[in-house]
């Protein structure tokens, strides 16, 4: 009650537009759960969550370090170490009040210090120092006032950067410009805290092993033996220990993990496994195995086939000829409508290929605005409603393209299409796509040339180097706003350089898509208008066939004892890497039970989203 008056004053100053802070969670009681065991092939190189950018390494941070906010299993943002927050009317200043009594714990489970607001300042000071080579610092420094200037060395006083403490438990961020989705960014590694004293003590050793970091989250890493195993145990001093049910997470390294995992699961040695596409038939035809299998959830990684507008491939594939045809919209549209995406998807998802197909770049249910899914907004609604595969339209656009390009381009057009030869799904899909497109459009029109490459530096030698005509690409979101899916196609991206397409340059010398996205980014007050502007930009990209939306990631089938829909759910960031809230069941769930659980989860989520939308008005 002591702080009611200043809080009231603050509320008078900072008007609506602040997200409603969640009520303090009632104390939960941990439910019984078996330990979680798994095998993995991708080893951690570092536990330093302030610098790493890889998902595997961020899993340690997701389970060992809490940030200001988190998501519940329905995808509703709620308080974590921040008990409340406010945002100023101009959207530039965010104030967070911390939960008191949260402790930093050593790997042995001993208390080291209390978590305080200064820890967030120290973390950013560390990651904003280029010498520390943080791969994720840009997400924070591009958002905070003077962050980019400090990183680039234009200013040297960190005090000018938009992060400071008002008192021991109050943290203030000042943004460079209003960011409507700023709260959602706080779930990412870039905004996690660190104890500055400990950081100074261990110096360059920070994060080199489990003993050289501190923990304030649900788990502590008790064992870290690279290329052998790692073990995380429940932090018994965790502030929300009642919601942590699995007491031990055991990871055993094996380079052939994807091959061995199904065998180990059947022997009861691990808690779950993905079912490789090549083995799926065997599992589905065996009643005993089928009873253990259910579909895996899809992710928000977006897959699409990109046309390259800045070709740099070998002369034998005639890049100059490609450059002529790719700038013809009818040529692109002929391929856009000719691609049978379902046939391609069967190579990866033989039992339910439609589940992963996506007609848009931004996946469905990624964001909603006033209860409406983003992909139902503006011109995207029509795109979502139809399948792009249309033989009649494909051939019609082909005829138009031939007429327009007569005498200008050589046919068949050579189209090198790289793929990773170590991935059997992708190898098969490359053959399917080649045969299907050439079969429909004719080998006298296009000559698709699948080119296999090894995994090592695949993207470096293909997509980033422009050594492709058409390529299957993907992109994952960084925050909960449609803007995140524009990054690959905005100038400066390394995907397909649509800004180099001819015929789309506007009066200001910039491309139409760039101008549309810039206008959308500038809208930070009216979120519905903002979403509509992004929807128009995305629809333009798709309707002009700069690329062909293909699928979302994830999917496939799993056999697992992890109870579904208990993990913190969010379409980006680290939430899905968390084990907080999860339960290891006695036996795996079959597809029928999973479908029931999924339907209930969807209903609960819709209700929760509506409730959250109502409470912020």
């Amino acid at each position, binding site marked *: 009650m002591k702080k009611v008056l200043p809080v009231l004053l603050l509320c008078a100053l900072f008007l609506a537009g602040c997200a409603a802070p969640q009520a303090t969670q009632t104390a939960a009681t941990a439910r019984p759960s078996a330990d979680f065991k798994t095998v993995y092939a991708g080893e951690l190189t570092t536990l330093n969550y302030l610098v790493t950018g890889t998902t595997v390494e961020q899993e340690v941070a997701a389970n060992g370090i809490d940030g200001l906010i988190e998501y519940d299993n329905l995808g509703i943002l709620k308080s974590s170490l921040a008990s409340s927050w406010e945002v100023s009317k101009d959207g530039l200043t965010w104030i967070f009040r911390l939960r008191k009594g949260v402790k930093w714990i050593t790997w042995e489970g001993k208390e080291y210090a209390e978590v305080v607001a200064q820890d967030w300042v120290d973390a950013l000071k560390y990651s904003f120092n280029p*010498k520390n080579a943080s791969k994720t610092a840009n997400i924070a420094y591009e958002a905070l006032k003077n962050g980019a200037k400090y990183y680039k060395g234009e200013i040297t006083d960190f005090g000018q950067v938009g992060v400071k403490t008002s008192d021991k438990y109050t943290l203030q961020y000042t943004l460079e410009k209003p960011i409507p989705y700023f709260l959602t960014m706080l779930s990412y590694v870039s905004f996690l805290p660190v104890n500055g004293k400990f950081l100074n003590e261990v110096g360059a050793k920070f994060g080199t092993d489990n003993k050289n970091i501190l923990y304030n989250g649900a788990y502590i890493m008790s064992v870290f033996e*690279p290329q052998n195993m790692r073990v995380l145990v429940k932090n018994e001093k965790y502030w929300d220990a009642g919601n942590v049910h699995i007491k031990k997470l055991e990871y055993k390294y*094996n380079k052939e993990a994807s091959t061995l995992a199904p065998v180990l699961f059947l022997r009861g040695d691990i808690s779950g496994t993905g079912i490789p596409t090549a083995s799926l038939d065997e599992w589905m035809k065996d009643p005993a195995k089928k009873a253990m299998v259910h579909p895996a959830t899809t992710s928000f990684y977006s897959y699409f086939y990109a046309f390259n507008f800045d070709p740099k491939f070998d002369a034998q594939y005639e890049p100059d000829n490609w450059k002529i045809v790719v700038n013809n919209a009818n040529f692109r549209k002929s391929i856009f409508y000719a691609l049978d995406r379902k046939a391609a998807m069967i190579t990866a998802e033989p039992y339910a290929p439609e589940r992963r197909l996506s007609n848009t770049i931004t996946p469905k249910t990624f964001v909603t605005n006033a209860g409406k899914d983003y992909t139902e907004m503006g011109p995207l609604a029509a795109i979502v409603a139809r399948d792009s595969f249309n033989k009649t339209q494909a051939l019609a656009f082909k005829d138009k393209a031939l007429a327009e390009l007569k005498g200008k381009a050589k046919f068949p057009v050579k189209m090198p299409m790289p793929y990773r030869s170590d991935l059997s799904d992708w190898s098969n899909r490359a053959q399917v796509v080649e045969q299907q497109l050439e079969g429909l459009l004719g080998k006298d029109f296009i000559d698709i040339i699948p080119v296999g490459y090894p995994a*090592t530096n695949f993207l470096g030698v293909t997509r*980033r180097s422009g050594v492709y005509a058409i390529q299957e690409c993907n992109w994952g979101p960084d925050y909960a706003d449609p803007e995140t899916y524009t990054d690959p196609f905005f100038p400066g991206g390394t995907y397909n350089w649509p800004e180099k397409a001819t015929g789309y340059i506007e009066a200001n010398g910039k491309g139409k898509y760039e101008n549309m996205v810039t206008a959308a980014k500038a809208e930070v007050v009216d979120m519905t208008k903002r979403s509509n502007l992004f929807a128009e930009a995305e629809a333009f990209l798709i309707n002009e066939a700069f690329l062909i939306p293909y699928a979302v990631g994830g999917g496939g089938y799993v056999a697992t004892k992890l109870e579904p829909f208990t993990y913190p759910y969010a379409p980006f960031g680290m939430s899905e890497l968390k084990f907080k809230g999860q339960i290891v069941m006695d036996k795996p769930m079959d597809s029928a039970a999973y479908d029931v659980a999924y339907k209930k989860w969807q209903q609960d989520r819709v209700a929760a989203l509506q409730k959250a939308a109502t409470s912020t008005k």
Partner: protein
Amino acid sequence: MVKYALRRLWQSLVTVLIVLTLVFLLMRLLPIEGYFADNYDKMTPEQREAVLDSMGLLDPWYVQLQRFYGDLLRGDLGTSVVYRPNVAISEIIAIKIPYSVRFGLAAIVISLVSGLAMGVRQARDKGRLWDKTWTGYIVFINAVPPAVYLLFIQLYVTQITRLPILYRRDNPVSWILPAISMSLGGIAGYAMWMRRYMVDELNKDYIRLAKAKGMSNKAIMVKHVMRNAFVPMAQYLPTSVLLTISGSIYIESLYSIPGMGGLLVDAIQRQDNPLVQALVLIFSTLGIFGLFLGDVLMAVFDPRIKLEKQGGSR
């Protein structure tokens, strides 16, 4: 002998320097995207530069080379920059070497004892059932890719025998299958060469003389044939022992043994230049030293072999 050793030492040093410098330069020809794992697209140009700077890669190549040799002269193998950033390479290797050496030595002992015994028996029973059966084993091991039969052993032998499928330090029973798997190729190799060299020796005149003098077959085999047949094989024994440090790429990855196997491949793929250079230094030094020891061992076994040129007509 001393002159020979000094000359070999000098040659070895020059060889190692050439190899190291070549590898150093080749690593710096690799594309820079390899230093960023999956993050390249999401990083700003300033961040990419900061990462490269932190690895010392923005300096001219001759400055980097000078720094590398300077550290080496001080006994510093350097720090990993990608594989395990900020961890001393000596620390990484010190953890892994004991695993590889233990399994490697166990495999060598099993291979030598079993392989030599098999080869001797084959030579003695040349053309009979035993010889033909083990020849079949040797052909199988040499013809079938190890990846196939090793995975088969791991999956099906563990099922039948209930042996653990993965290595665990605290479970000695889990050490058995990896050690045996590692020795299978060696058994076939030692048996094959032992048989071959013994058969060659058995056809020589001095053996006929020994038989004519009334020596028993057993005495001929043990005192003459085996010893002479072993001489050419002795040359490679020191290298095999020393290079147990390099581990077995496939076995260690199959059974989750945290040894040295695959470390060099991993380091190259991740473009961890200091780690690659340190490993090349270690492996090339051990390989060269092993060859030297092999030559010495041959001279010990066979007094006719001289390591240095003698005066005279030849």
